């Protein structure tokens, strides 16, 4: 009853968001569609009782991955991309993706992986799926877990290799150097005579333009 309606609400939200991603001329609007899709997908997860996964979806996809997309959109020149729009070139690839996805869906439906009954709302009191995940992830599924660690390491190294360009034309602050500087390095004590300057190098190179009389 009520779960059905809420399902319809979130499902419509996902479709609208996804449609916006595809149809929007402005990439930023497509980005907004992506946010809508993620939020509604998280809502569906929570509706099916997987509240940990739902919140994780918001935290990781919405809070991190989409933020990176937004940074990319903000820091590139969008006009530049309009010039190279050639939608037809991507048609075969798109059709292939659609075919693969459709095949997967049909297979999954044949094996009865889709349940059409949404009967429950999560109560917040049921066995917590975060604990169920935790109980198996770090012991039974230790190999995939460690592999995901390696994937993250690869991503980290890859990001640095691809984007990091050390700049040599800027002065950096070295706090250790600043703190460890001694009195001898930075300061020379002299007792200058009147009218003769300090007698150090700085004073030798400094010549007054005109002497006041």
């Amino acid at each position: 009853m009520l779960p059905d309606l809420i399902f319809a609400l979130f499902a419509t939200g996902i479709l609208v968001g996804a449609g916006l991603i595809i149809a929007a001329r402005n990439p930023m609007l497509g980005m907004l569609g992506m946010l809508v899709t993620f939020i509604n997908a998280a809502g569906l997860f929570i509706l099916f009782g997987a509240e940990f996964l739902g919140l994780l979806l918001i935290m990781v996809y919405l809070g991190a991955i989409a933020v990176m997309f937004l940074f990319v959109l903000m820091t590139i020149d969008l006009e530049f991309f309009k010039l190279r729009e050639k939608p037809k070139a991507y048609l075969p690839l798109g059709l292939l993706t659609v075919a693969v996805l459709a095949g997967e869906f049909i297979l999954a439906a044949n094996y009865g992986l889709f349940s059409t009954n949404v009967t429950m709302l999560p109560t917040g009191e049921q066995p917590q799926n975060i604990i169920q995940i935790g109980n198996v992830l770090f012991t039974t599924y230790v190999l995939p877990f460690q592999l995901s660690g390696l994937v993250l390491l690869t991503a980290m190294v890859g990001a640095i290799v691809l984007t990091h360009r050390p700049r040599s034309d800027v002065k950096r602050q070295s706090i250790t150097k600043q703190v460890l500087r001694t009195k001898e390095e930075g300061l020379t004590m002299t007792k200058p005579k009147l009218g003769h300057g300090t007698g150090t190098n700085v004073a030798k190179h400094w010549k007054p333009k005109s002497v006041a009389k």
Partner: protein
Amino acid sequence: MELLTHYATTLVTFDNLLMLATTLGIILLIAVPVLLGMAYTTWFERKILGWMHLRHGPMHTGPFGLLQPIADAVKLMFKEPFIPGASNKVMFLIAPMLAFIPVLVVWAVIPFGENPFTGSLMVLANINLGVMFILAVTSIEVYGILLAGWASNSKYPFLGAVRSGAQMVSYEVSMGLIVLAVILLAGSMNLADIVNAQKTVWFFIPAFPAFIMFLVSILAECNRHPFDLPEAEAELVAGYNTEYSAMSFALFFLGEYVAMITMSAFTAILFLGGWLPPFDVAPLNWIPGTIWLLLKIIAILFFMVWARGTLPRYRYDQLMRLGWKIFLPLSFAWLIITAIAVKLLGNLAA
């Protein structure tokens, strides 16, 4: 059509309508005090800053200037809204709403203490993953600012927004790690359980370094002094809200101050025992828990204003250095120390 009438007859029942009405009532009971509290946080900040500068702060509207926030709100309502010509109009209007909605939604899970009459917990949604809910929802906050900077299509807002986005994102990691250390101590992610686990000792004592790092991180997360680089007026005019006026501007303002109160409440619950009195002895535990929570929130807000009154602004490279090179490794190390201690000695769960 049959389906519709079916839905209508089964859903629109007296019980369901009563449920809807009470829920809306409770929501208003939470949202209205939060918004009023936000208005008076601005007054509180101006007053405290004034005294710190040997000034009076607002004092002409009402006794002690108490009507100042209301005057400000009314003024902003009657200001002219304008939308820059070069901006993206839809997103220009959506951005302030995105900055405001998440910080208010967090209040759905904040527990306000035990009901003094029935002893039950006062909270709208008592969910098991309360901590994660707060972290997830506050991570959406950054969109309002980033979109505002982009939609304005003006240089200062753009620079302010990009800075702000990178800054909030950088401190979110160490915040998450610190919160994890608290979860380890309490053995639960339910906010009420975390408070109840502090009955023996408030967590800011066993987790003192984490507490200090968390206080600094919430300053950066809320874009508050000394980390308010996104709106550093000397270099960026007003950052992401340069082009905004009237209520759109007010929504950013609301978002920032509600975020301050929200983060203070979160800190009070994680480290300062939430609604628990400092000692469970006679005169102190007569005071209702909600008052204690309120006092703790005010104390943390005072800390935030105090930082603004005392400290000079950070430079951007120093800010990123503090986040990535100091807080991240330190909070990481603290998490591992806590994990080993908890694994060996057990947690403090009530």
